[in-house]
């Protein structure tokens, strides 16, 4: 099956005070129709930059896509003219962000922002778009949609705002929804509501979701496949169920083990020693070697590649749990 989105060798960098900083290195992955792919990793690993790179939303300057292709419907999004890119954004590929408060324009009504994509991409009249907005708001579970449509973002609660964001993203029934930490800013109970909503919408609309998150719990709840990133690189790509059961990369393993468990008791939590290498550090061997309890001298000298089959890839010389 042909992937709906194919990222090849994506490298994105930023101009910082101390020189250029590569946030994403040589990243490749595929997203298939109807699939939910989670990109996980800790802060600074490049997952959000990946999401923004796909829609070419990297602020330039200081950011820039240095290399790589992003294939969508046989077109390379990195080479699209601005006008054509605009037609993709919000129409075929939509995106929701982490902070529903700051991601909505405070001076326009929710309805107007929902209608925006409809008017731009589907040439709807204002009246039709308004009606469509109301039904969209209904479909994301906003109570009193007829009233809410004319309200301003600050008049809504955090959960409602995120629902409105989702309504906005889904307005044109996109093929791909990129959700960048969609629940991080929300309380647990609200997060549960949104996760539930996303799952239902996904089932209903059969779209592909690229889920960016740091929360393994969220990944487990939504994702079919998981791409684990560490320090700008993909280190493991697996089916969700397999990954949680038997992580191949020592980092993934560490990540999973350091989460305090609700179901079991530990006296001491497992932890990955040290911290992520500075983003501008050039490391010869494996970027995780310094923190890896399995690391051998070999690891520090030889850079591992992301290897494996279509369903399972890992970037480690001594991958775990590989039979």
């Amino acid at each position, binding site marked *: 099956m042909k992937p709906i989105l194919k990222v090849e060798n994506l490298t994105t960098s930023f101009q910082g005070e101390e020189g250029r900083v590569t946030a994403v290195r040589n990243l490749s992955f595929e997203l298939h129709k109807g699939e939910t792919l989670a990109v996980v990793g800790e802060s600074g690993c490049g997952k959000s930059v990946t999401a923004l790179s796909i829609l070419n939303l990297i602020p330039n300057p200081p950011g820039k896509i240095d290399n790589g292709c992003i294939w969508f419907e046989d077109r390379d999004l990195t080479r699209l003219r601005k006008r054509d890119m605009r037609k993709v954004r919000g129409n075929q590929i939509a995106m929701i962000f982490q902070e529903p408060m700051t991601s909505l324009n405070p001076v326009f009504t929710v309805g107007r922002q929902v209608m925006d994509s409809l008017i731009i991409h589907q040439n709807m009249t204002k009246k039709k778009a308004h009606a469509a907005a109301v039904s969209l708001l209904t479909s994301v579970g906003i109570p009193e949609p007829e009233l809410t449509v004319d309200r301003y973002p600050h008049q809504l609660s955090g959960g409602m705002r995120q629902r409105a964001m989702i309504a906005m993203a889904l307005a044109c029934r996109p093929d791909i929804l990129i959700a960048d930490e969609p629940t991080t800013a929300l309380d647990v*109970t609200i997060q*549960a509501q949104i996760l*539930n909503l996303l799952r239902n919408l996904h089932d209903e609309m059969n779209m592909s979701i690229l889920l960016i998150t740091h929360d*393994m*719990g969220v990944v487990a709840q939504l994702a079919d496949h998981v791409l684990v990133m560490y320090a700008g690189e993909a280190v493991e790509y697996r089916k969700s*169920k397999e990954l949680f059961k038997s992580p191949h990369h020592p980092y993934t393993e560490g990540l999973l083990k*350091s989460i305090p468990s*609700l179901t079991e008791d530990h006296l*001491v939590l497992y*932890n990955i020693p040290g911290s992520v290498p500075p983003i501008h550090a050039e490391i010869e061997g494996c970027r995780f070697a310094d923190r890896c309890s399995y690391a051998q001298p070999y690891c520090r000298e030889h850079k591992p590649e992301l290897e494996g089959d279509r369903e399972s890839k890992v970037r480690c010389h001594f991958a775990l749990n590989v039979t």
Partner: protein
Amino acid sequence: MNPLLEVKQLKVHFPVRLKSQFRPAYVRAVDGIDFTIYKGETFGLVGESGCGKTTTGKAIVKLVEPSAGRIFYDGKDIARPMKRAERKELARNVQFIFQDPFSSLDPRLTVGKIVEEPLIIHGLGDAEERRKTVAKLLTDVGLSADRAQSFPHEFSGGQRQRIGVARALALNPSLIVCDEPVSALDVSVQAQILNLMKTLQDSYNLSYLFISHNLAVVKHLCDRIAVMYLGKIVELAGKQSLFEKPSHPYAEALLAAIPLPDPEALMHDEPLEGDMPSPIKPPPGCPFHTRCKYAFARCRIDEPQLLPLDGDADHLVACHLCHPDTGTIHKIKK
């Protein structure tokens, strides 16, 4: 066991000036809570944002003035206004660890100076002694002592939080209020800090008041846990008891809402609906009735009291469902 800290009917109300009103309204951030922390234990305070957990913690170290109620530390009331000497005395016993490892350290001081500062304030030791103490503290929290001359911005988030811990330990307190100390950290670093805190608890003979929104973290660290909702404690129990038998519908829903890192254990229950009401105008009766799927008529008018569950004095719940026949209908204030 000796009670170290007793909080009795603590209320903290903040005036807020709404643009549309002349008279200030009050945010009832903390609205009458009771709990006790015993020596050597870790007491958890959980709840969602705006439930009043941080305010409670700040009231204990006098960063906010309580509007009503008492707080006893070692039998002495510390909620009343204090002279500076008393304040310093309290500071030596109760310390605080902040949530944000970035803003909690003065960016213009070296790490050594930051950790040394409490010692200077309290006049402990001469310069040489202080230097040694600082070195020991830094080592204890897992930092190299020779980094004392570095500035905070040269450290990672986890390391900064270690510095914050070192500063809190400098005065050798008995109780440390930890306000979401790991919520700004990545999972791998979070685990490091949690382990560190556990280690230090033993070596420094500490008690913790651990404030967090993360139930898993609380469960890992705490002995007893209070669940807060809208400025009130709705359930207070030992860790085992609470997680095995969450009795308040809110605690139950909170627990159910946590996505487990296990694809096999998908959430099936319908999530809790709606949002937390505004603490400026809390609903009458049970604060949770607006979202509670079990709510019945009484819940809307009568506020449930925090009472032992099934006679278990260590497991308190404030819910009419759990205490169908207790209490009288309280008059509702207009």
